[in-house]
């Protein structure tokens, strides 16, 4: 085994345009069912094939971009497995290389974070069992400004049912955007969904994750540099009030 420490990847080799068509057929490898998923490949120090006591992924960063939030959360929740899901080829590869480098530089850390390239709009139920996730992050999602493309937005009425499915009751959804119109859209749709309830300001102050949402992601830092607005909304998965 090579003892050479891997250096961090340079972002200039991984730049890619911000948009990807989530409806088109891309070539993805995805497990037929959650139990077919080989997580050992992603968390070799935490998950062992065949072991009965493997931890399960609990946090999912949907459209994780360059992985800034994951890297921050990795050391805040060292025992929690978290996954970044990103559809863009180069960007997801950057995050994978970044995590590999961080693991090599800090042998005891970052074993709980990983990134995979997939279309989260289509394949979440292939990766996660019902009620498996305790946190989901939607930071700076593609605003898809045109009205005809609103159904491509990662937060929409129909997809929220799938997010509710993979989340445990009590789990938290975090959304951040710098686009006011998208913020209002997300708040409206998640609030209208019977399985989610907005978390109030008083509670947000207590949540150590909240302050990291603004600063840790690359997209967030860019908005800060440009003195732009950032809109946050947080929701809790509740049980069905009509069941």
């Amino acid at each position, binding site marked *: 085994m090579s003892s050479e420490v891997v250096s961090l990847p340079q972002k200039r080799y991984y730049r890619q345009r911000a948009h990807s068509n989530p409806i088109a057929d891309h070539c993805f490898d995805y497990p037929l069912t959650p139990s077919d998923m080989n997580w050992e490949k992603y968390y070799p120090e935490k998950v062992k094939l065949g072991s009965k006591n493997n931890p399960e992924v609990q946090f999912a960063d949907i459209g994780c971009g360059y992985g800034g939030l994951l890297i921050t959360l990795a050391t805040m929740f060292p025992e929690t497995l978290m996954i970044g899901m990103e559809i863009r*080829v180069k960007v997801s*590869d950057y995050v994978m290389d970044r995590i590999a480098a961080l693991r090599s530089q800090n042998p005891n850390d970052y074993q709980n974070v990983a990134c995979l390239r997939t279309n989260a709009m289509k394949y979440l139920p292939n990766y996660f069992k019902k009620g498996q996730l305790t946190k989901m992050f939607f930071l700076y999602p593609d605003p898809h400004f045109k009205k005809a493309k609103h159904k491509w937005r990662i937060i929409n009425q*129909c997809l929220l*049912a*799938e997010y509710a499915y993979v989340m445990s009751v009590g789990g938290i959804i975090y959304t951040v955007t710098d686009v006011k119109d998208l913020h209002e859209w997300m708040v409206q749709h998640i609030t209208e969904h019977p399985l989610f309830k907005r978390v109030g300001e008083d509670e947000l102050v207590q949540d150590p994750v909240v302050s990291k949402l603004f600063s840790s992601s690359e997209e967030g830092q860019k908005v800060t540099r440009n003195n732009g607005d950032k809109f946050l909304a947080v929701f809790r998965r509740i049980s069905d009030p009509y*069941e």
Partner: protein
Amino acid sequence: MVLLKKVNNDYVAASKESVVLFDLETETDSIFKIPEPILPENLTKGQMDVLKKEDRTITSLTFSKCEEYIAVTTENKQVVVFDKSLNVIKNFIVNRVASKILFTAANDVLIADKTGDVYLYKLKEDEPVLILGHLSVILDVVLSNCEKYIITCDRDEKIRVSMFPNAYNILSFCLGHKEFVTSLKILGNTLISASGDGTVRFWNYLNGTQLGLIDSNCNIKDTTFIEAFSKEMDEEKVDVTSLPITDMQVFNGGNVFIALSLYSVNGILLYTTNIKTFESTFVSHILPDVNVYGFCLDSKLLILSKTLYCYVLNGDSYNKFSSDFVKGFAIKHCSNLCLNNCSSITGLYKRKFDNVQEYLERKKQRLGLK
């Protein structure tokens, strides 16, 4: 395929812009012609398309549970509900081409469309309610007998079980099919699904557990069909190893019978299944020389082709029968039966489009250069 449905003794078959109703007991038949679409005053884009579109081929056909009503959807986005006396009850336009229509026990109508959405149209209200959405075309939708659950399947191998009508609450996913799911049937507490991967699967739909499987391709001894199809799809860069199931019919008459049609294969494959152990037995390949347009299975098995073939269940087997009416029906109607474009099934496969390999090659070069 020709759409053919049965309730009690009444059959309905789609025939060009008409529906043929017939009854083998009373030996009567009648034709219902789809009326012209009624267009509202302020036309939306979808409604404008209707005006332009000549093709009024029927895409879906169903009976109500009370057996009084029949509903059809057409290629030009029209939905028509009529009763057995051929009176039009409702005639309206939807914004997207419907792939499947279904009645609830309350005679409301569920319409799944080609973009993956399911709308509930209440008979007494004009505005539909969007109840769920997939990201690809919905190929079938069924309600459990108790109507507490709605089950939908799509081009992405998925079967989704949601509460009904509160479909925002997903109960389970039945995952395991390796291609698009073409057909769903409910048998008590069991869900039966058929797929482009050539298999039929049995599910406990409450928790998504697979209970049993039939690999229909095992019963096609002649491998020339799959070789030909595989070659055809290879040209489109799709890797195909099984013949897809194009339609499935299920009948519980003491024994549970399952009838399948496969793409490019003549005739019908018939199975029986033990619903306690979910073990299935291949019974026979019926009419292996006949190009089947459509079929319908209960205590009778009707197969539509250039002529009409009838079988009746007698104990454990289906026996052929004929009558002057059956012969006459063939002469009168079979040449008009509208064939849905069956080759459209090839469009359900995913084309390979690999943008990863090329990137990784370039990256390897870049790292090698350092």
